[in-house]
């Protein structure tokens, strides 16, 4: 390619530097390879799956289009129940988690008990499976209260169990964020005359929280699915509604329908997390290498 032709070509491929052309070619090449390998794998699956002897049974049991169509609208109402639990649990978890993380990081000697309690809380709460917390609190506390009032309800205590369990995880995420803020930041703030509390509030936390947004989203995605565990306490939410239908017909398609509903929320949440991660990385390094 001569210089003249480059000029005549206008602001197209030829105006780019050799390096840019090379990079564009490499990008095209990776896209082509990705497409080819995806097509190969998907094609293999499509070709092989119907060949397996149990496929017809599996198809009938899990992917029955008629069953899917008839159950899906019925799941929407119960799914809203899941979303509601998620919506009131998430802010509580974030607030409680932050509080505990800060409690775990207090350095005042007089407040050592706070630190001790926060550490113990995280150890205990994270060490027990979520489903056990839900069973223990959800069935246990209403049995103590024996009331039909709102504060004695299964749902309230099931939610409290979720908030407890998840605040443990979230507190650790916040703690990691707080500890990732360099000591010099604290030192600088203190030397400017800020108190310990002020340093935490206006210097450490703003940096820490920004850093941990992606892992926090990760926990929220996880929470969004775990709200279905509250179904063991009796409310007919999406998972339970699906299981009722499964036991009635011995067809598992309703579970697939419920899974699709959960994906409708968790995939956008995950993509948002990815996006935030990417942005964070770009901000930290100035460029993102793909």
């Amino acid at each position: 390619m001569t210089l003249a032709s480059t000029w005549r070509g206008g602001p197209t491929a030829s105006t780019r530097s050799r390096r840019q052309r090379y990079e564009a070619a490499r990008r095209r090449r990776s896209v082509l390879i990705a497409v080819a390998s995806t097509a190969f794998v998907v094609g293999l699956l499509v070709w092989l799956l119907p060949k397996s002897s149990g496929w017809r049974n599996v198809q009938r049991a899990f992917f029955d289009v008629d069953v899917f169509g008839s159950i899906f609208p019925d799941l929407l109402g119960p799914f809203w129940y899941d979303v509601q639990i998620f919506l009131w649990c998430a802010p509580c978890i974030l607030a409680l988690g932050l509080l505990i993380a800060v409690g775990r990081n207090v350095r005042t000697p007089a407040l050592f008990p706070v630190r001790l309690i926060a550490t113990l809380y995280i150890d205990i709460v994270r060490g027990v499976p979520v489903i056990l917390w839900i069973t223990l609190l959800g069935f246990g506390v209403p049995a103590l209260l024996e009331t039909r009032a709102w504060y004695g309800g299964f749902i309230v205590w099931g939610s409290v169990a979720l908030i407890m369990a998840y605040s443990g995880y979230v507190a650790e995420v916040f703690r990691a964020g707080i500890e990732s803020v360099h000591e010099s930041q604290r030192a600088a703030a203190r030397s400017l005359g800020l108190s310990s509390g002020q340093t935490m509030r206006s210097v450490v936390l703003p940096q820490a929280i920004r850093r941990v947004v992606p892992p926090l989203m990760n926990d929220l995605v996880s929470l969004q699915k775990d709200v279905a565990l509250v179904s063991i306490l009796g409310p007919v939410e999406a998972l339970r509604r699906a299981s009722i239908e499964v036991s009635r017909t011995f067809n598992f398609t309703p579970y697939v329908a419920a899974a699709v509903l959960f994906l409708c929320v968790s995939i956008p949440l995950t993509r948002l997390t990815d996006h935030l991660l990417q942005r964070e990385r770009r901000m930290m390094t100035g460029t993102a290498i793909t």
Partner: protein
Amino acid sequence: MRTRALTITVVAVAVAVGLSACGSDDDADDADEEAATTTAAAGASTTAAEAATTTSAGSTPAGPARVEPNAEAAACAQGKTLEPGVLTVATGEPAFPPYVVDDTPENGQGFESAVAYAVAGTMGIGPDAVEWIRTPFEAAIAPGPKDFDFNLQQFGITPERAEVVTFSQAYYTGNQAILGYADSAAASAQSLGDFQDLRIGVAAGTTSLNFVIDVLQPTEEPLVFNDNAGAKAALDSKQIDAIIADLPTAIFISGVEIEGTAVFGTFPPVDGTEGESWGLLFAKDNALVECVNLALGALSDSDQLEAITTKWMTTGTPIPEISLE
């Protein structure tokens, strides 16, 4: 109300004594026949305790009862079991009384355990050659090969289910019952409307749940639990007014498990209600089902099935029937 509570307590004690006393009956035939003469079908006013004491009269070592093989059924079952000469039977984990006692189906105590051993015996398979495995409800119905010959955990027979699995003929037909605290407002419910206004708890995967949704149709959405343990916890903590369960389960809960509760009544079978009859569950088109049907037929002809039913599934107190009108 007081007298009722007293009656229930008496029954509770009787059932408890019966359960512990009848851990032994080798010659179940005579004993069961005797019991059968004094009793009718489930739900009638017969005494489990009476049947239990009659059977325990001949004190023999504990374990499943031996049953005379039926030639036809035995010949049929030859080579059709999963493992030759061994019958692999599945039930739930945990299994609840009165279907399985002490969560140990191997002891032959409890209705479903007794039925399994009776079916096995009739097919010429001795108690030693019966292997028990545990499957969750979902595993029993998932597509793919099964690791049991048959599964029994109160599976109601419905046409939809029968498209996916194969059921034997019914080994039990029962009614739904409602129970709650004897001294609660729910106990005074009379009409169907009164019962519909109660807050109901029910176990998932049961025919009771179908009954609640299709027939009872309570005004408030029922709470649905993994098993009756959850429903009991809910009743205990006053989150629900009443539990709907099949009659034998209801009798057991009110008689033995939760003090102060009573069975308010039973609901008559409704035409079009699904799943009032329970069948043994087989993998789709399992050839053994014919032989089991032969065995069940023989057991019911000789009244042995009725005797087992009477022994485990009935109570001494008459329970009112609630009109569904």
